[in-house]
């Protein structure tokens, strides 16, 4: 609690250290989803607010504060109202080493849909929307060459032996970006080495793989791999997830990833005026349930993006992951993102 209070104070006073010019800007997201389930209408409304205060950086000094929080409202039978703080941190440079302190979201992003490294973040799925709750701790990053960095992330616990630690070496070779990571979760005494890459060989190839090695010598692999390819104004993407570990399971309904083998297919078409029309499918290969979606995205105003999509199950028994019994007969999802 004391640690958290310090972070809040740090966030609030950080701008005062940036005596001169200070930029404040942010993003507001609203995600409204309506589902038809068991003959009843259900909806939830997710609001995300992200605020960044930044002293314009120069080569020697940088100072930023970040705050983002979410408010989820779901009325009805399963009503809930949840408030979460995703980010509350400040970032600076000390002797060419980047430091982030507070609650933050480590960014790892090679695969498009399934991201095994999110085990560290614990994403929460809410019917078509994903909330990432940040971790409390510190991040140190040092660059050794223009494209090679070593990152250390620590999420401390009251008892230090229960803390989590992450080392991430990121570099570039040929046309490939790659990372080699080592995550240690003190609480479960689990070591998770892994790697990820993304490169271009005419088609874009990407992979993320995470191994779980526990004290009891149990050994699991979670790996997501795929490619994307474009022609004219069309793009197709294919991604396969082998979900060997049990950690990458969300407690929420829809995309709970209870299976072992998944396929994700996506295709979209860039239409005039920067708009995108697409359709995608997620298939749980174990229970053979699947979810189809069609979506449309447009920048409706300067800095304001609107996305709407419809999701509906096309196969699966009542209790399967993507069946109508689990997620409803359809979900209509509207998403608005406004920068200010």
């Amino acid at each position: 609690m004391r640690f958290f209070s310090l972070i809040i104070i740090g966030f609030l006073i950080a701008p005062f250290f940036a005596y001169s010019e200070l930029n404040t800007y942010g993003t507001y997201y609203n995600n409204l989803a309506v589902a038809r389930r068991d003959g009843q209408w259900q909806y939830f409304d997710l609001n995300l607010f992200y605020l960044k205060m930044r002293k314009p950086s120069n080569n020697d000094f940088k100072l930023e504060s970040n705050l983002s929080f979410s408010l989820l409202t779901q009325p009805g039978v399963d009503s809930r109202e949840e408030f979460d703080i995703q980010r509350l941190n400040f970032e600076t440079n000390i002797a060419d080493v980047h430091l982030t302190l507070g609650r933050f979201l480590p960014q790892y992003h090679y695969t498009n849909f399934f991201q095994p490294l999110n085990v560290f973040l614990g994403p929460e799925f809410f019917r078509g929307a994903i909330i990432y709750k940040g971790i409390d701790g510190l991040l140190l990053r040092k660059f050794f060459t223009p494209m090679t960095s070593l990152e250390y992330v620590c999420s401390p616990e009251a008892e230090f032996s229960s803390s989590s630690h992450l080392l991430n070496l990121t570099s570039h070779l040929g046309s490939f970006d790659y990372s080699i990571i080592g995550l240690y979760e003190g609480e479960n005494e689990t070591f998770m080495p892994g790697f990820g890459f993304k490169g271009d060989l005419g088609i874009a190839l990407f992979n993320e793989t995470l191994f779980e090695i526990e004290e009891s010598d149990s050994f699991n692999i979670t790996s997501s791999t795929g490619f994307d390819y474009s022609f004219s104004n069309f793009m197709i993407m294919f991604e396969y997830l082998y979900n060997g570990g049990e950690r990458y399971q969300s407690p929420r309904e829809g995309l709970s990833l209870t299976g072992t083998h998944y396929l994700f297919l996506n295709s979209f078409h860039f239409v005039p005026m920067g708009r995108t029309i697409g359709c995608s499918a997620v298939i749980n290969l174990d229970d053979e349930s699947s979810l189809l979606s069609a979506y449309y995205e447009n920048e409706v105003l300067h800095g304001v993006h609107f996305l709407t999509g419809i999701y509906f199950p096309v196969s699966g028994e009542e209790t399967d992951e993507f069946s109508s019994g689990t997620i409803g007969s359809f979900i209509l999802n509207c998403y608005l993102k406004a920068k200010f």
Partner: protein
Amino acid sequence: MKKFLLIFFFLLCHVFARGAELTGKQILEKTEDNVYAETMVYSGEFTINKGDRTFVKTFKGWSVGDRKAFVEFTNREDIGVRYLKIEDELWIAEESDVIKISGHLLKRSIMGSDFSFEDMMESNKLSELYEVNLAGEEEIGGEICYMLELESDKEDAPYAKQKIWVGKNDFLPYKYEYYALSGRLMKSAEVLEVRKIDNKNYPVKVKMIDELRKGSSTVFELKDLKLNVKIPEKIFSRQNLLE
């Protein structure tokens, strides 16, 4: 003897004059050399016209030849959006997340403009990618221009066919047309302003029109341009993307 010398001089001039007739490839090479700068530091803006809507996006940029570039957007809605190009690879940073742009993403437009990543990414010289043919001469905006037709079947050529109009006097490009393999005109670009910088004429304002989208055009303008200045190597790094 005097008469002989005159005839000899006339013949010599004629031979040199014929030798001075440039091929399409030579004209293109001369144009590329003409607009090439060892380094550039600039600020500018994209004015994006989408039907009756207009968006303005401002940016700062640094580049080394056509090999390295770093661009940071400075308008309020896009603060924190940065692009890094090294040779033929491209990364984008947004909200502390770095994504390598490859495959399908290269086809997408930059910040909703009529320029695609591929348009801006071109590292190889056109004269190395395309077969060049001098198709004639035309007047563009009062300037007598060579009209060059470029064709390529190479995969890394962003368009199957291009036409470029190059000023006969200054070897600057004044107009471009970009065609698909089918021969369909996809985009066209026109140089709107040429400015003298360090005793060198440089195109600083270009209008790109997407011919497949009615009412869609983007004016790319360099407001402040410095040529051949020293740029720290750190600018072209993943570190700078994350800063």
